[in-house]
C-alpha cells in the first residue's frame, strides 16, 4: 500500500522534517532542531502538531444515537453538554481496548477522534454495532492540527477571536477564510492547547500563519516524549486488546452513573475489576540514574521475580531524566516500590511513581 501524505507534507519538507512511516502515513518525526528542543519549545512557548493522520469520524443523529452510543462507550452522553468532549475507549466484550479516543457532542451528532492505526477497524466495528442506522463519515477531507503550550491560546486567538475563552475539553465553530472550522481546547502533551479540524485545502495556510505568529512545527518524536511525561497512554503500546481501562488505571474516564447501570460493552468485566481489583495495573516507573528503559523491558521485584513489563520508556527532556510506564502485578504498584529493570542483561534499580512525571497545566474546567 502506498504511504499517504497529509496536507501539510510540503510544509514539513520546507521546514526540513525527517520523515517516518507511521500508520501508513509519511509523518515528520522531527525537524532540524531535534526532539529535545522541540519538546522544550512546546512546554515553554507553543508547538504545532500535524495530527491529520488521526481519524475524524462524524456520526450524525439525535436522541436515538445517544442511546446507541451509550451501549458502546462507558460515558454519560445524554448529560454531556453540547460541544463538550470526553476521553473514552472502544472496547470488546471482555473490556479489551480496541482504541482510545476523544468524543465530542456536536449540534449534528458526535465527532470522534481516533488513532491513525486503528481508525479503519474502529469504523468497521462501530458501523456493525450501530447497524448502519446512522450516517457515518470517516472524513478524509479534513486535517487535524494541534497547537500546544502556554503561548498557544494567545497565538490562536489572533486568528480565531474568542478561542481563548473555550474551557478545557470543550469546543466551538470558528471561521477561517469564510470556511467553518471546529476547534476544541484539548491535546495530548500535558499542556494547554487546541485541536483544529479544518478542510485540507486551508490547513497549510493556517499553519503557516500560526508559524508567523511565533509557533513552531513539532514532530512525532517530541509528541511522544511530551505525552509520556504527562503520563498519557499511547495505543498499541500502553493500551491494547489485552488490557482493560481499569488495568490501564483509567477508571476516572468511566462514568460512575453508567457503571451503576452496567449496560455497555465490556461492563461485566469492568464492574468485576472495579469490585475485586485487578491482577496487573499501569504505573509510572522512574529508573534511578540515567539509564533508559524502553518498551518490552522486563520488570523484577527485589527477589528477582518477574512482575511486569515496560510499555513506554524514553528520556524526558523536561524531567531531564529517564521516564517510563508499564504494567506490574498489583501488589507491587504502590508508589516508591523498588523494582529492577533488565536492560542489556543487567538489572537496574527503579521506583514505582505516580503519574504524571510533569505537572499538567490545563486551563479551568478540567472534567
Amino acid at each position, binding site marked *: 500500500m502506498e504511504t499517504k501524505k497529509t496536507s501539510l507534507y510540503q510544509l514539513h519538507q520546507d521546514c526540513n522534517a525527517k520523515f517516518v512511516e507511521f500508520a501508513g502515513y509519511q509523518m515528520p*518525526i522531527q525537524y532540524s532542531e531535534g526532539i*529535545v528542543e522541540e519538546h522544550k519549545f512546546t512546554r515553554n512557548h507553543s508547538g504545532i502538531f500535524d495530527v491529520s493522520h488521526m481519524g475524524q469520524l462524524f456520526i450524525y443523529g439525535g436522541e436515538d444515537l445517544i442511546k446507541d452510543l451509550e451501549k458502546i462507550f462507558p460515558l454519560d452522553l445524554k448529560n454531556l453538554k453540547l460541544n463538550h468532549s470526553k476521553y473514552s475507549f472502544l472496547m470488546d466484550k471482555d473490556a479489551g481496548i480496541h482504541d482510545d479516543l476523544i468524543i465530542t457532542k456536536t449540534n449534528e451528532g458526535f465527532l470522534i477522534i481516533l488513532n491513525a492505526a486503528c481508525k479503519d477497524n474502529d469504523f468497521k466495528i462501530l458501523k456493525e454495532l450501530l447497524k448502519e442506522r446512522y450516517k457515518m463519515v470517516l472524513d478524509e477531507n479534513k486535517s487535524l492540527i494541534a497547537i500546544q503550550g502556554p503561548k498557544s491560546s494567545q497565538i490562536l486567538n489572533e486568528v480565531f477571536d474568542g478561542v481563548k475563552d473555550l474551557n478545557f475539553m470543550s469546543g466551538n465553530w470558528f471561521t477561517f477564510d469564510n470556511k467553518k472550522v471546529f476547534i476544541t481546547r484539548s491535546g495530548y502533551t500535558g499542556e494547554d492547547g487546541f485541536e483544529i479540524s479544518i478542510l485540507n485545502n486551508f490547513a497549510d495556510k493556517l499553519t503557516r500563519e500560526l508559524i508567523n505568529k511565533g509557533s513552531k512545527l513539532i514532530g512525532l518524536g517530541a509528541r511522544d516524549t511530551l505525552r509520556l511525561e504527562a503520563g498519557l497512554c499511547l495505543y498499541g503500546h500502553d493500551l491494547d486488546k489485552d488490557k482493560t481501562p481499569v488495568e490501564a488505571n483509567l477508571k476516572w474516564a468511566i462514568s460512575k452513573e453508567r457503571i451503576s447501570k452496567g449496560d455497555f460493552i465490556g461492563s461485566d468485566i469492568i464492574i468485576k475489576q472495579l469490585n475485586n481489583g485487578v491482577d496487573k495495573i499501569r504505573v509510572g516507573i522512574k529508573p534511578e540514574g*540515567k539509564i*533508559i528503559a*524502553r518498551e518490552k523491558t522486563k520488570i523484577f521485584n527485589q527477589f528477582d521475580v518477574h512482575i511486569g513489563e515496560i510499555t513506554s520508556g524514553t*528520556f524526558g*527532556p523536561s524531567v531531564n531524566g529517564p521516564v517510563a510506564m508499564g504494567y506490574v502485578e498489583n501488589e507491587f504498584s504502590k508508589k516508591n516500590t523498588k523494582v529492577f529493570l533488565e536492560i542489556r542483561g543487567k538489572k537496574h534499580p527503579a521506583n514505582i511513581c505516580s503519574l504524571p512525571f510533569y505537572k499538567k497545566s490545563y486551563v479551568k474546567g478540567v472534567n
Partner: protein
Amino acid sequence: MSEVKYSKEHEWIKLDGDVATIGITKHATEMLGDIVFAELPEKGSSVDKDGTAGVVESTKAASDVYTPVSGEVVDINQEIVDDPSKINQDPENTAWFFKLKIKDKSELNSLMSKEDYDKFAKEGSA
C-alpha cells in the same frame, strides 16, 4: 600523531603511539538525534575488533557502539556519561568515548580515510 580513520559503524579512531582514541562521528550523531545516555566499557577491560564497547541512546532508540580495533581500555570519557548532550556538540573532538592500548596496528589498515568515509556516509544516508 597519525591521521584519523573511520569505520563502517561510524566510529572514528586516532592513534597516538600505541594508544587509540575512539569516538562516534558527527554523521552518526546527526542520524541518532539528541543523545541522552551513554554507556562506556570498563577501564582495564579488553575489547575485540568489531565487538560492542558501549551504548548510546537518543530520545528515539538505543544503538551499540563498536570498537574498530582490539585492545585494553586505558581511559574512558566520564564527561560524556555525566552529560551525554556533549556528544552532539563536539563528537569528533572533546566528546571521545574511550582510549585503547592497541594490540595490532595492522587492524587499522581496513579502516577508511576521511574522504572515503564521507563518501560512504553520504551514500548510506541518501
